[in-house]
């Protein structure tokens, strides 16, 4: 068992820090259905943490609990060493937790650049009138924020579509724009809900590369959900495995792969 403040070193030599997000005994019910049953796990600074499981395991529910879209009936969420009081999703976002959605939630009518700029909204502080006439602090702020966005846009290789309305983009690019918007807020924790869903092999490889690069370049802590085992195992440092709302495995990809419960959940097991 790892200590909360002490880090560890990954197989490829990256230093992982202390606990950023600590989920303690989370239980989430919808009416009589228990979507998440008493699950605890943590996410450490700088690591890529995956939550995997078969369909309906409760992965997305877990992500929604972290990002404040769902409120668990039981359990505590600790973020950066403090117990998080009940919060609205926008407050969670303001704390520095950015996310993407399984079904892509972008501002379709706006350009790619405008979409990415919305990621900076919480960082803008200039007074209203100054923003409207684009002077003084507002101008400096806009320039600074724009620079950060351009950096992210360059990084994700979407320069050529900066001015295109998002509605016109193909699916794969939309996913990338969504990632760009989340990154633009310079999140302390980045949540990715099935970043590879619906993609072909090539797009998946691209996305995997971007996720690894983001983590490497910006040191962003990433938690992602995926049900493609192969991709996850290559990508992540540690993996939580869920099945029917319960945690059935937690550890490095190798540990998880060797876990009998996980094998049963994924391949099925005969009950005789």
């Amino acid at each position, binding site marked *: 068992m790892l200590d909360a403040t002490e880090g560890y070193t990954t197989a490829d030599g990256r230093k992982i820090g202390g606990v950023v997000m600590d989920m303690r005994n989370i239980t989430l019910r919808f009416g009589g259905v228990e979507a998440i049953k008493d699950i605890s796990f943590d996410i450490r600074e700088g690591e890529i943490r995956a939550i995997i499981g078969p369909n309906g395991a409760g992965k997305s529910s877990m992500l929604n609990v972290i*990002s404040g*879209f769902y409120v668990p009936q039981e359990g505590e969420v600790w973020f950066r060493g403090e117990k998080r009081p009940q919060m*609205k*999703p*926008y*407050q969670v*976002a*303001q704390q520095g937790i*950015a*996310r*993407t*959605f399984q079904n892509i*939630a*972008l*501002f*379709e*009518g*706006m350009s790619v650049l*405008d979409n990415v*700029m*919305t*990621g900076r*909204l*919480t960082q*803008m502080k*200039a007074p*209203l009138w100054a*923003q*409207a*006439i*684009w002077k003084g602090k507002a101008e400096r702020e806009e320039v600074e924020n724009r620079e950060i966005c351009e950096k992210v846009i360059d990084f994700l290789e979407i320069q050529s579509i900066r001015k295109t309305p998002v*509605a016109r983009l193909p699916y794969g690019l939309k996913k990338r724009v969504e990632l760009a*918007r*989340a990154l633009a*807020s310079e999140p302390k924790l980045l949540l990715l809900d099935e970043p590879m869903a619906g993609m072909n092999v090539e797009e998946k490889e691209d996305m995997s590369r971007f996720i690894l690069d983001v983590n490497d370049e910006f040191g962003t802590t990433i938690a992602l959900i995926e049900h493609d085992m192969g991709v996850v195992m290559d990508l992540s440092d540690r993996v939580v495995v869920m099945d029917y709302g319960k945690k059935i495995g937690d550890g490095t990809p190798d540990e998880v792969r060797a876990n009998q419960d996980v094998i049963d959940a994924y391949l099925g097991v005969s009950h005789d």
Partner: protein
Amino acid sequence: MPDTLIFGMEVFLNGLMAGVLYALVALGFVLIYKASGIFNYAQGVMALFAALTLVGIMEGQVPFSHLINAIFGTEVHHFGWHVPALLAILFTMVVMVVLAWAVQRLIFRHLVNQEPIILFMATIGLAYFMEGFGDIMWGADIKKLDVGLPQGINLAIDEATFGLFGYGFFIDNLDLWATGIAVLLVIVLVAFSQYTKQGRAMRAVADDHQAALSVGISLNFIWIMVWSVAGFVALVAGIMWGTKSGVQFSLSLIALKALPVLMLGGFTSIPGAIVGGLIIGVGEKLFEFCFGSGQCFGGIINLGGATENWFAYVLALVFLVFRPQGLFGEKIIERV
């Protein structure tokens, strides 16, 4: 120059001015519709309520005086002071912000994720409630509103056109002011929605609620803000209409004239509301001039007047057939 053309030009100019007033009301609709997808039937009543409140504050009227007198047997009507127009406008704006907050808090907070038709019904309810509330609060009599805007014929234009054509145009000063104020209002609104953080957040909320939440935007705050801005626009419209034809309860019906304007301009476009308003204003005045009273083309068509009552709606109908999204509305695309 033939007389008909000169008269026609005067009619055209007056139509533009009338269109500006339509546009002002339509603007309020567009703002709320864009940000929350709610078609706010109460926008016209909001203009009425704003005008009533403004007059009430300026005249130092005691709110709910009828109610108070009836219950306590007193005879209070006026505080006995007069508030300067500018200060009264500020106070009225405060009232409109409180109203925006109350509307969000008491009604739409409980209707999140409901069907558009249910939200629409809620605004109808709101419209009737506010009409009654305004009545109880300030009384039902027609009130004169004078915030110091100049009224009457503009002599400069009259003389200039007389020198040019030998016929002086009648252009009302108030209409000129209304035009100037409307232009200013649109510039401010566009600057606000395009360049400010709150404006960007407003557009974001209009586009996708979930995504807006995930980048840290409070939907509640944005909605209160949008209703406040719509309240402000209603106040401006209320001042213009109120000054022109007195503050009376038929003011709430001008909202109906805004409907064809919106169909022309599109429900989601601020410039569309302006252009739509102008087209309706000019269109109905010119149509009345040419065919309503038969003054064009030697009077071959003479409908005998009163075309202004229906022209706008027929025009809107034509638009619905050929361009349902309006001139500037977002194109309706269905992916198959």
